[in-house]
């Protein structure tokens, strides 16, 4: 009988670079920055590592393929290093590899590091998808972009719940404005300017109905975690953070090709959340979760995540947004570090960046963003489009 991952593994060190348009930094610089901070934070040496997991998504414009970019850059001593890629959930996937390896008993201490150098494309937004989806898909998929893929969920959400584009956009704008407020308090965030709801509403259209400020930053960055056996964690530090659950759910294809899915929720997220809560022993997430970092690549993604994660009722997340439920001083602060929206979204690093904020908050080291007495933090990291995707979740606590 599977026992799950709860309380078997602890995070004892984390690092995260400043995210942003790091024109001066190559992927190697980002890797070293995140790694050195994590190593120092954990108080261990390189030789203490048993194995490592390296996450990068756009290898063709960033690090290149395989695990070698990590090992060569950090001069790892012939360690077993695995490279993982799961689109925008790559960072959480690297962490999951390291956590599972420790939980299996194969290693005592492992490293997970995600890094992405996105700003070498020459244009805004993510690289073109057409070339990344295989030889057949490029013959049949529309010429779509990430904002377009998620915009279709907004269109459907508005339609299903009878919201006019203006009403719908206003809810989404409040989500973005909240994240900008949080991001302005974060020295490592990419975008640090507060914006008003009105500004969001009036921003240039990117993919109808999503405007510029409904979209997250496209950034360079890296983040790292060092994990170890739970029973040895306190020997490294007094405040290790324990993994309560790690789950991933990958689309079966029914959303895109069968006609049941309503496109105003993410099916894999509902499945992933149910598994994650069960693994962590959480009965009522709205009451038990202290704070969240959800995958807010676009404002609509965050809105729908509130419902998929059973924090808000279906179709009612807008009410919670209006009530400030997810604000930094609200009941469940969401995106306390600014989220993908403002911290930025270097694909392979994002899942680990989310965890970095939960880790710092739990340790009471989040500076002016510090949330009062958090107990359980949740990360929700999504790769792909609403119609076909994978959702990776982690729940951590003291």
């Amino acid at each position: 009988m599977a026992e799950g991952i709860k309380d078997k593994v602890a995070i004892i060190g984390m690092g995260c670079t400043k995210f942003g348009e790091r024109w001066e930094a190559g992927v190697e610089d980002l890797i070293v920055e995140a790694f050195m901070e994590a190593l120092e934070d954990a108080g261990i040496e390189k030789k203490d590592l048993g194995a490592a997991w390296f996450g990068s998504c756009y290898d063709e414009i960033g690090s290149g393929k395989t695990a070698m970019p990590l090992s060569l850059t950090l001069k790892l001593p012939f360690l077993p290093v695995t490279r993982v890629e799961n689109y925008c959930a790559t960072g959480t996937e690297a962490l999951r590899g390291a956590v599972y390896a420790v939980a299996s008993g194969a290693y005592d201490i492992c490293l997970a590091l995600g890094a992405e150098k996105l700003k070498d494309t020459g244009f805004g937004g993510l690289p073109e998808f057409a070339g990344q989806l295989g030889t057949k898909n490029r013959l049949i998929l529309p010429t779509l972009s990430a904002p377009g893929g998620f915009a279709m969920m907004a269109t459907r959400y508005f339609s299903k719940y009878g919201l006019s584009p203006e009403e719908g956009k206003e809810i989404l704008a409040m989500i973005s404005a909240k994240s900008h407020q949080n991001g302005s308090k974060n020295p490592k965030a990419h975008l640090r300017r507060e914006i008003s709801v009105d500004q969001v509403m009036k921003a240039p259209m990117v993919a109808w109905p999503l405007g510029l400020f409904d979209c997250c930053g496209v950034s360079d960055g890296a983040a790292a975690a060092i994990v170890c056996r739970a029973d040895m964690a306190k020997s490294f530090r007094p405040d290790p953070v324990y993994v309560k659950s790690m789950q991933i759910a990958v689309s079966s294809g029914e959303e895109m090709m069968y006609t049941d899915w309503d496109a105003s929720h993410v099916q894999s997220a509902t499945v992933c959340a149910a598994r994650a809560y069960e693994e962590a022993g959480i009965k009522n997430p709205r009451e038990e979760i202290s704070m969240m970092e959800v995958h807010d690549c676009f404002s609509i993604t965050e809105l729908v995540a509130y419902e998929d994660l059973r924090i808000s009722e279906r179709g009612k997340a807008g009410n919670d947004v209006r009530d400030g439920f997810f604000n930094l001083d609200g009941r469940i602060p969401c995106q306390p570090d600014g989220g993908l929206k403002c911290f930025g979204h270097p694909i392979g690093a994002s899942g680990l960046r989310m965890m970095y904020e939960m880790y710092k908050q739990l340790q009471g080291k989040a500076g002016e963003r510090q949330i009062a007495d958090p107990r359980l933090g949740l990360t929700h990291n999504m790769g792909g489009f609403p119609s076909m995707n994978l959702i990776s979740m982690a729940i951590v606590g003291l």
Partner: protein
Amino acid sequence: MEGIVSYGGYIPRLRIDRKLIYQAVGWLNPATFMKGEKAVANFDEDSLTMGVAAGIECLKGVDRAGVDALYFACTTPPYAERQNAEIAATALDLKSRIRSADFTGTLKAGTTALLSALDAVKAGTMNSVLVCSADQRMGKPGSAQEEIFGDGAAAILMGSENVTAQFLGSFSVSYDFSDHWRSSGSIFDRQWEDRFIRDVGYTKFVVEVLQGLAIECGISADQITKVIYPCLYAADFKKIARTLKISDQQIVEPLLGQIGFTGTPDPFIHLAMALDQSKPGDRIAVVGFGAGADAVLFEVTENIEKSRGSRRSVGHYLENKRQLDGYEKMISFRNLLPMEKGIRGESIPPTAMSALWRNRDQVLGLYGSQCRACGTPQFPAQRICVKPNCGAVDQMVPYRFSDKKGTLFTFTGDYLAFCTNPPSIYGVVDFEGGGRYQFDLTDVELENVKVSMPLEMSFRKKYLDERAGIHGYFWKAVPAMS
């Protein structure tokens, strides 16, 4: 009895008011002024896609498995090698055991293809031959041809059963008459002096073939109900009628002011329009002009009403139009104006020809699969059924989506993804009878796109890889025409 079994026209939705052309480039030669408007292929249309659209119209209510050959008549085919007719045949879901050929090199290629089809049917070699004809000819900016040429297509199915217009006879002449020409590799038509074309071309050959046709068929001009012939010069168009003693009622007025001169498909489009309005017993003569001329005579049979069925008339396409709001858009759609595509727009992943071959039915023919166990249609074709709780393995039969109607489940208008005519509009289509997939939307404006709007599928150009010389085709969703 041999003759026309079915027919269909296709006129692209966009029109340009010739005043816009004249305002932009009329300064070069004020004599190019022409009234009216002309049909313009959308940025994702070309001769091949329009030919397929006409073929779809023509094959409505026809058993596609019964078609023995596809002839594609066109002077502007996208491919010089890689047979255009065969791409069309796959798109039209004709069986692989057919004969396919491109007829090209002259504007009479359509009527010549039709006569070749007829010969095969008469000889008993084939029962049913589809002739698709289309053109998208280009005049240089500022030329009279730019004002005159319009885009369009028409298709005619020739056969020996259920004939709606019986073949009565034909007469052809062939001359190396260089009224206009275009050398290999050139995109623009060049022509000799108008007076020469008028006096030595139209007024001689059109008269010659129609007189020859009358003698061949043993009838006089007054026994013909409608006469279709081209002449780009209005005064001489009437002069030809006078010479042949054709009355105003017998003339089929050219659609020059509505769609322009469409080239190879022009006689077919007018023939389709005449057939739309015909009654049993009508005799229709049609002339294909170019490098000489072909004249063909048909007599409409009792089957005409029944054959119209659910097919859209040419008149329907004439009414379903939208004005293009600028000359520059027209020439940028044709790649005549080098527009900024941005780095994103320039990145075209290579086409794997072997993958296209493997998936040709899905890509060119929009075939998915249907699960025998649960009946669920799915696109693209699957090995394992996608329906939750079914999951049957290898129980699939091919399922054609190209002729299924659908509704728009959700959509966006994307200003980030590259599109020749931004925004890139795409969405998720739920098909009648089951099946769902995401498709580009075309022939729509974002402000008119609504969730749940009815859609149908249209064969379109998906991309042009200029470096590799590849025209990539797939299907897009368009608003369903009533």
